[in-house]
């Protein structure tokens, strides 16, 4: 069942003006500065005098810039925009013993993915994200959230050469994720998010994801907030089962679909906190504050304000950078305005948004 840990209060900023608090956060990825891509190209150019140390410095600079960019939007919790990560499976596969790479495979058209193979039992070698977290923590003035690709997705988006079943591979990977979170917690992390986009394409495997989460959450202290992010799925196929997942928060995109599926989560009662996507990660227009406020109220149909977190639908890395910034800025403004309206008793929590027609 949901952890239901009361660990949200630690993220309230000192100068928070409203009695109500809607935790604002992001899913993780953010557009990379153009100069970072140029630096990466340079580092791969044998003729350029730009070595691995120079590239590392470029990553540091980008992480600092994007962390501060997040802070300027007013977000309560920030990430570094995943500046050091190339792709959500490849990045981790490079750091886990047992994985190997054979070359790109087609996803569609001329879009390819360096799909790794699990050639041997997976083992923990060195920390995956502790350096990234420590750097971001040191430059940030707000709490830092750590997104981690989940074991089910790491298994499902790889070739499995070594395990009898994908399920067994996912469980072994879940144990490694648990180890990594322990190290992150030692380093001071208090907010992690497990990303499982693969669950959306194979929703019948929700029990496998549930067992993975049991292993991931095992021994992790209650003050550490554990979120699960899933996107672009048919949620009637994993609800109410997800109420049994040992998580504090379920993060979901629904803005892109115009909240068509929001009612799925209203019956039976939603157990974990809801982190609701209120801006679309796939449209290059910044939603106006008023529109985002209406989206936030959709979340109040599912959970009370003290269980509602505000987030974009998904990672923002495919957007132009100024659009990504504008979406977050308006999102935070909208959240603060809704808090004020809640303080003033202006929102009817029994019917936060008018029913269509």
């Amino acid at each position: 069942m949901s952890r239901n840990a009361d660990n949200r209060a630690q993220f309230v900023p000192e100068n928070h003006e409203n009695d109500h608090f809607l935790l604002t956060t992001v899913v993780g990825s953010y557009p990379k500065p153009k100069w970072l891509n140029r630096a990466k190209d340079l580092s791969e150019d044998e003729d350029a005098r730009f070595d691995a140390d120079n590239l590392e410095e470029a990553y540091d600079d980008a992480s600092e810039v994007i962390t501060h960019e997040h802070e300027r939007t007013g977000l309560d919790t920030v990430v570094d925009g995943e500046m050091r990560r190339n792709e959500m499976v490849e990045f981790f596969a490079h750091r886990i013993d047992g994985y190997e790479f054979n070359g790109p495979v087609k996803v569609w058209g001329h879009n390819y993915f360096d799909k790794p193979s699990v050639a041997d039992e997976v083992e923990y070698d060195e920390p995956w994200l502790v350096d990234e977290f420590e750097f971001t923590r040191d430059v940030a003035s707000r709490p830092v959230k750590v997104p981690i690709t989940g074991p089910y997705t790491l298994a499902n988006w790889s070739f499995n050469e070594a395990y009898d079943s994908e399920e067994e591979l996912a469980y072994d990977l879940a144990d490694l994720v648990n180890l990594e979170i322990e190290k992150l917690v030692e380093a001071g992390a208090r907010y992690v998010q497990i990303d499982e986009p693969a669950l959306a394409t194979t929703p019948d495997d929700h029990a496998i994801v549930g067992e993975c989460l049991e292993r991931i959450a095992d021994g992790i202290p209650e003050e550490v907030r554990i979120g699960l992010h899933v996107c672009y799925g048919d949620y009637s196929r994993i609800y109410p089962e997800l109420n049994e997942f040992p998580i504090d928060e379920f993060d979901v995109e629904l803005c892109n679909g115009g909240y068509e599926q929001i009612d799925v989560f209203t019956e039976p009662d939603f157990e974990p906190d809801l982190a609701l996507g209120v801006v679309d990660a796939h449209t290059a227009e910044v939603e106006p504050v008023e529109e985002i406020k209406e989206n936030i109220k959709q979340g109040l149909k599912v959970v009370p304000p003290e269980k509602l977190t505000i987030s974009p639908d998904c990672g923002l890395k495919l957007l132009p950078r100024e659009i990504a910034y504008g979406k977050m800025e308006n999102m935070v403004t909208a959240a603060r305005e809704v808090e004020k309206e809640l303080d003033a008793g202006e929102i009817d929590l029994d019917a936060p948004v008018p029913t269509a027609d």
Partner: protein
Amino acid sequence: MTELVATTPGLYPLPDWAKQRLSELKGHQKGDLVSGDEGPEIVDAYDQAREEVVADQQGAGLDRIVEGQLRWDDNLAHPLTVHDNVETGGIVRYYDNNNFYRDPEVVGELDFSGDVAAELETASDLLAAGDSLQAVLPGPYSLADLASDEHYSDEAEFLDAVGEFLAGEVEAFPEHETLFLLEPSLVENAPDDDLDARASEAIDAVADATDANVVVHSYWGALEEKVYAHLMDADVDAIGFDVVAGDRSQTLYNINEYGTKDSVALGLVDGQNTLVESPETIRDRIEWVQEQIPAQEFDTVYATSNTELFYLPVNKYQEKLAALAEGVALARGEETEVQA
């Protein structure tokens, strides 16, 4: 005496240099994919890539050579997405995979196209003496299943039209020894009671258009009993079964209960996993299947990968071709050269 034929269902991965060059020449977006009227630089890149994959097969020692279907950006939907009376809609999921294709929306009559025939002509030119060409097409049921129809009056009429269209394409093919019709939708989205007999009739229409041996290949599971029973009515030389990912007991039940054609195709090598089967494993799988079907000695056993091979990185696709050829050689009782 059973003849063993090492072959594949085609749809190969592009060589890595061609992935790069073609993505630069064509672009990454929906509108940038193959339309059937590519410019000379793009044609040139595909010609060069085709030479390589034909050479891959010749080098491995396969008994049938496919064109490789490297231009098929939309996978099995390709013959429709390049058709003049088809518009391409959104990007949709390709079966249960992390792959996508453009939804072909049929808005006019499916008349003759000639796109696949032209590809096969270029492949024919690359054959050496003694090589046998194998044509590859989606089966009519799968092609109709992958498309959206906005022109024909109902599902049945559309299926017939797709069958007639494919038959017209086959008539224009250059000389070929074998025609593989890939029908994964017969498993993945099995026809209902109104369509299952019709799906077999549509296959018949395509098979009638060629003198070559026709194989209807199914994969990603076993055929439902009733679908299989209807498929047995089709006048084809062999039905193909997925021995790797399929429900083998259901497949064997179908075959032992309803019989099968005089020849058979066996998907023995996993087209979706980088683990390369050893030649001995492939030989053992051929022998195992034959032992499970004691009542029949096949004229021909086509030993193939279960699925298309574009899911694999290039090095593993090449290793799988070699393993197939060597496994078949072992099953024939031939000594094989040990690869360095």
